[in-house]
């Protein structure tokens, strides 16, 4: 059971994630977009979207710190467990507030505004549902366990297991006694990875950083058969 949950499922999700992206990139450039609905509704989006996105950036940074950086490293540079805990809970709570408010606004406009509701596709609904679950569990873990509750040092277990996934030697036993919210949060996150390539989330990979240095006006030649473009 442990092996199924903490080895097979994660690898399956990551495989779908990778293969799905490659497939989508090859066959569906035309569908690869943010599918913005700002044209249809802008008042809620104006607050919801920036809050949500900034919250996500903060959450990603926090996860990178907590999951990828081994505890021994932060201890080497003199970060005590107490300090780490304070920083992670503080920043995590701030991110959680942004995420909850942002996602709440974005979800609300999907329900309240008729125009946006009508353009919401089944894929969007699935995506919103999974995102909501992932975020709700994550927020419960951060705020519920670590801020209000006794606190749980996930860096001894979850982080080690997670890094093991990428070293191709994940240890499922580490996850067996992790509190349920953390377990469910991790599993739902892998569900998110699995549906990612088939949703509008692909726009994440098109973040237009190159815009910062390309020339303003782009010229292209008309395609002529027989001449490579």
């Amino acid at each position: 059971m442990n092996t199924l949950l903490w080895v097979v499922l994660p690898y399956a999700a990551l495989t779908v994630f990778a293969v799905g992206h490659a497939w989508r990139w090859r066959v569906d450039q035309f569908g690869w977009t943010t599918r913005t609905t700002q044209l249809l509704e802008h008042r809620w989006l104006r607050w919801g979207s920036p809050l949500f996105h900034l919250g996500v950036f903060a959450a990603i940074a926090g996860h990178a710190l907590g999951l990828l950086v081994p505890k021994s490293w932060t201890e080497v540079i003199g970060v005590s467990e107490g300090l780490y805990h304070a920083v992670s809970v503080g920043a995590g709570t701030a991110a959680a507030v942004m995420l909850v408010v942002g996602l709440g606004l974005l979800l609300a406009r999907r329900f309240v505004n008729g125009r946006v509701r009508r353009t919401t596709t089944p894929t969007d609904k699935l995506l919103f549902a999974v995102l909501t679950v992932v975020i709700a569990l994550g927020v419960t873990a951060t705020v519920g366990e670590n801020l209000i509750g006794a606190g749980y040092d996930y860096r001894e277990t979850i982080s080690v297991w997670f890094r093991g996934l990428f070293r191709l030697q994940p240890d499922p036993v580490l996850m067996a006694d992790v509190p349920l919210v953390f377990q469910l949060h991790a599993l739902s996150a892998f569900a998110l990875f699995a549906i990612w390539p088939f949703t509008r989330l692909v726009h994440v990979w098109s973040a237009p950083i190159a815009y910062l240095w390309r020339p303003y006006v782009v010229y292209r030649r008309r395609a002529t058969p027989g001449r490579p473009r």
Partner: protein
Amino acid sequence: MRVMAQVAMVMNLDKCIGCHTCSVTCKQTWTNREGTEYVWFNNVETKPGIGYPKRYEDQERWRGGWVLDRRGKLKLRGGGRVRRLLSLFANPDLPSLDDYYEPITYDYDTLLNAPASEHTPVIRPKSALTGEDTAITWGANWEDDLGGAAEHAPGDPNLAAMTEKVKFEYERTFMFHLPRICEHCLNPACVSACPSGAMYKREEDGIVLVDQDRCRGWRMCVSACPYKKVYANHVTGKAEKCTFCFPRIEAGQPTVCAETCVGRLRYIGLVLYDADAVTAAVSVPDPADLLEAQRAVFLDPHDPAVAAAALEDGVPADWLEAARRSPVHKLISEYRIALPLHPEYRTAPMVWYIPPLSPVLDAVSTSEGDANDPDDVFHAIRDLRIPIEYLASLFTAGDTEVVAGVLMKLASMRGYMRARTVDGTVADDLLAATGMSAAQMEAMYRLLAIAKYDERYVIPAAHREDAAALAAQGAGCSLDVEGGPGMGGEDFHVLPTDNRIRLPLHVADAKEARR
């Protein structure tokens, strides 16, 4: 000097009757699809009026086009590169659908299925977006022929600069129609604002297009265009815009709007310009100098040095010949009667307009002058502040002298031809006043008034060096894909026969959701 060719258009506003044929044929060709219900690549506005989308000319609000920064360098009015990226999550300058209008349809089924009853059944307008009952309160052409002008037209941003207040009472006002398409600018703000690099200007003919495969829906082009001529397709999530009917242009045919124009007032031809001079020309500090600076970017195809440089830079010989015969070149550079729309936006637009004389003639008639007497007309042009100031605000960044000069030329042409055909005399004074020769005057008259089809349109066909590959395309047409006519990077009739399939996941989904 780097010589480039541009397909450009001139519209003679005196002849526009506001029939909207151009808009309708354009819509039938390009935007009669879900997601583009509210989109008019070609629209015709009544001026004065606030236009489509509402008050799009108010750049304080919509922040389109370019401005000079403190050091005199060009920058997008909506902000530089970093600011653009920071507003990806919510673009503060994007018009909402209500600034265009809520597209509607009718519940036609009621007519077909209504049971027999005492009263004729009526159909209700339904929102084309939500399918719910809606009230029709605005449209792309709400102000047609000054309808509702007393209420709305004072909001026209062009009226702000006028020294006299325009009255919107029936006998005392003036109006004309302004057909608009994308300007296919030399310094396109839309292309410059596109974070994905999906928009581009074609090297061969200057047509500005959106690569549908590369657009990621960041919607920066929509707000950056000061003319609001890029639109967001809310079903595909991609930007779309006027294509200058490139498949037709490549075949040597005029655009659909021009071909079907009832007033036969559109001219299409090539202009040659110096690509290296564009940035400097749109960066001159005083907006009143922009018109002259932009004119100076155009090159004279009759000049042997220009011709040699053009051939060197890859302009084909037959295109050079077409540039020499181009009606657009004549109207802009030789007769100098065509003017750009809002040169102060600094995008160097490539659809120019011959300003209408009719508001002046109307004013002469109402003040009991003789609209056929050149002297009365000249006086009116000199004395009237309305509508000259208004036209100047549209076409010359406020320089009334230039507009008056163009109108004088048009009035002189009328006077000259009238003297010649009615009285059989040659009005030398009019020739002297305009500095034109009799031959030039008559050629201009022929181009404007007779306006023969093959003088209005001088469009060289595109060069397709590999005809065999073309034939190998077979009958398939990539315009037939679901969700959009192919404005892809590959032009539709030369789409390489690779085996990519188009899989518009979301479009299919959206259709599903609507059922």
